[in-house]
C-alpha cells in the first residue's frame, strides 16, 4: 500500500484484526454450515450470509487483514473442521470473499457516514456473489462432458445460478448483510478500536478510499480465481490422454496391479521384521 505512513495499523494490530475477524466469521459460517436451509417453492430461505461481520470489521479496521481473516476463518472453521474441504473450489471462495470484503472496506471513507456504509456493504456483497456465480457456471460447464449436448442442462444451469444470485442478493444481501452492518458500524465505532489499542478510523486516515492499486489487486485476485478454472479446462486434455492410454494399456494396468501387490507383500514382511526387531530391543 502506498499510503501507510500515518494511523495505519502496526503488524501486531493487523494480526489482532486477523484473529478477530477469523474467529467471529468462522463461528458464524460454522452455524450456517450446520443449520440446513429450507426451501419454500424455489425461494431459498437460509440463515446464510453472516457476511455482515467481516464487512463491519473491514469498515472499522484495516480492510485487508479483516478480509483475509474472514476468508481464512471460513476455510478453517466450516470447511476443514467439518471435513467439507473441496479442493480447488475453496480457493475460489477464499478469493471472492477476500475481494468482496476488501472492496467494501476500501469504499468507506468515514464510518460515521451511514449512506456510504450502506452502499459499501451492498457493493461488497454483490461483488462477492457475482464472482461466485460466474465461477459456479464455469465449474458445471467444465465438469459435465458434452455440456451443450444434454437437453435442457445449459438453460437450467444459467437459470438456477442467475436466480440464486438475485435471491441471495435481494434476500440475504439486504436482510443479513446490509441491515446488520448499518446497525453495527455506528454502534461499534469508537468503542471497539480502543480494545485493540488503536485510534478510530477517520476521514483522513490512511486506509480509506479506492485507489487504482487496490483495484489492480482485486482484478489480479479475480484472475487467480479464473486461473483455477482454466486449470480445470486443462483437465479436458488430460481426459483424452487418459482414454487413449486406457485402450492400449491393459498389459500396463496388469503390470501396475502386480507391482502394487508385490509392494504390499514386501511392506507387510518388512513391518513384521521391524516389529520383531523392536520386540527384541
Amino acid at each position, binding site marked *: 500500500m502506498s499510503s501507510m505512513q500515518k494511523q495505519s495499523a502496526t503488524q*501486531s494490530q493487523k494480526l489482532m484484526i486477523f484473529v478477530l475477524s477469523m474467529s467471529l466469521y468462522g463461528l458464524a459460517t460454522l452455524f450456517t454450515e450446520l443449520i440446513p436451509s429450507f426451501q419454500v417453492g424455489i425461494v431459498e430461505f437460509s440463515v446464510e450470509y453472516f457476511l455482515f461481520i467481516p464487512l463491519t470489521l473491514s469498515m472499522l479496521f484495516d480492510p485487508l487483514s479483516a478480509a483475509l481473516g474472514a476468508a481464512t476463518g471460513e476455510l478453517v472453521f466450516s470447511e476443514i*473442521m467439518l471435513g467439507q474441504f473441496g479442493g480447488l473450489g475453496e480457493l475460489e471462495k477464499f478469493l471472492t470473499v477476500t475481494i468482496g470484503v476488501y472492496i467494501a472496506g476500501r469504499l468507506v471513507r468515514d464510518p460515521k457516514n451511514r449512506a456510504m456504509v450502506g452502499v459499501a456493504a451492498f457493493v461488497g456483497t454483490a461483488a462477492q456473489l457475482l464472482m461466485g456465480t460466474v465461477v459456479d457456471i464455469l465449474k458445471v460447464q467444465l465438469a459435465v462432458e458434452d455440456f451443450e449436448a444434454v437437453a435442457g*442442462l445449459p438453460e437450467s444451469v444459467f437459470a438456477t445460478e442467475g436466480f440464486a444470485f438475485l435471491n441471495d442478493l435481494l434476500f440475504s444481501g439486504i436482510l443479513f448483510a446490509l441491515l446488520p452492518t448499518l446497525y453495527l458500524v455506528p454502534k461499534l465505532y469508537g468503542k471497539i478500536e480502543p480494545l485493540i489499542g488503536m485510534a478510530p478510523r477517520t476521514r483522513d486516515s490512511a486506509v480509506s478510499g479506492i485507489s487504482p492499486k487496490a483495484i489492480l489487486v482485486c482484478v489480479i485476485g479475480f484472475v487467480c480465481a479464473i486461473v483455477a478454472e482454466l486449470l480445470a479446462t486443462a483437465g479436458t486434455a488430460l*481426459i483424452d490422454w487418459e482414454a487413449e492410454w486406457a485402450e492400449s494399456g491393459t498389459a500396463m494396468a496388469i503390470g*501396475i496391479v502386480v507391482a502394487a501387490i508385490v509392494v504390499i507383500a514386501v511392506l507387510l514382511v518388512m513391518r513384521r521384521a521391524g516389529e520383531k526387531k523392536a520386540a527384541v530391543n
Partner: protein
Amino acid sequence: MSKLMQKLSENILDKFSMDFLRNQVLKNAYGNDDTVIAGLDPRILLAWYLFFGLIPWFVNDIPFLLGCFLLVMVTTILARVAGLVLFLFALGVFAQTGYLFLVTLFFGGDASAIAPLLILTLKVATISLASITVFSGLDPDKLSNGLMWYGCPERLSFSISYAYRMLPMLMEEFQNVLLSYRLRGNPPAHDTFPGKVRYLIYQVKIIMQSFYPLMLNTAKRSRTTVEALELRGYRYAAVNKAVKKIRLSALRVSYNDWLFLAISGLVVAVSVLLSTLI
C-alpha cells in the same frame, strides 16, 4: 396433523441444540485419535488427498470413478467420522446434483440427463469423502504440521490450531450472550401465522444484536492472544527455519503409511484394469 408437525419440529430442534452441535464438532476434532487413519503420517495423507481430491475431476470413466469412490468410502468408515458430518455430506451432494437434475427435467430435459449427472455426483462424492477422511480423520495439530511441512503459510496452520482450541469457548460465549438477550427480551406471541413470522424476525434480530457484545469481547480476547504470542516472539519464530525444523521433527513415515499408499494404488490400478477390460 398439526400436533404431529409440532412434535416433529420440536424433536428436530432438540437434536439441533447448541450443545449437540458443540459435541459433534468436538467429537469430530478430538474424538477419534485411535483410528487407523489418525495414526498415519499427515504428509502421506495430504499427498493421498491431492490425488483423490483432484484426479476424479478430470476423469469421466465410470469404473475408475466407482473404484475411487469405494476406496474413499472405506477410508471414511475407517476414520470413524461424526454422524453430523456425514449427514451434511449427503445433503451437500444432493443439493449440488439432485436439485440440478430436477431443474433439468423442468426445462424439458429427459432421462438422458441422468448419465452425466451420475458421473458428476460420483466425482463430487469421491472428492468430498476424500476430504472428510483427511480433514476429520486427522487431529488438528498433526494436520497443521503436515500443511506446514508442505510450505503452507504459517498463518494457516496457526489458524487451524487456534480454531480448534478456541471454538468451544466461542460457542459457549455466543450461547451465553444469546441466552441473556432472550432473558431480557419479550418475544411476540407465536400462535398465529403472522405471529410466527414476527417471532422468526425477532429471533433473527436477537442473533444479529448478540454479535455486538460478542464482537467487543472477541476483540479483547484477540488482543490478549496476540500479545501473548508476541511475548514469545511468535512473528519471528513463524519465519525462522530452525524453529520450523524443531516443530516438524516429530513427523515420521512408518511402514503403515507406505502400506496405505500401496493399497490405494492397488485399488486404483484394479479399477483402471477393469475399465480397460470393459
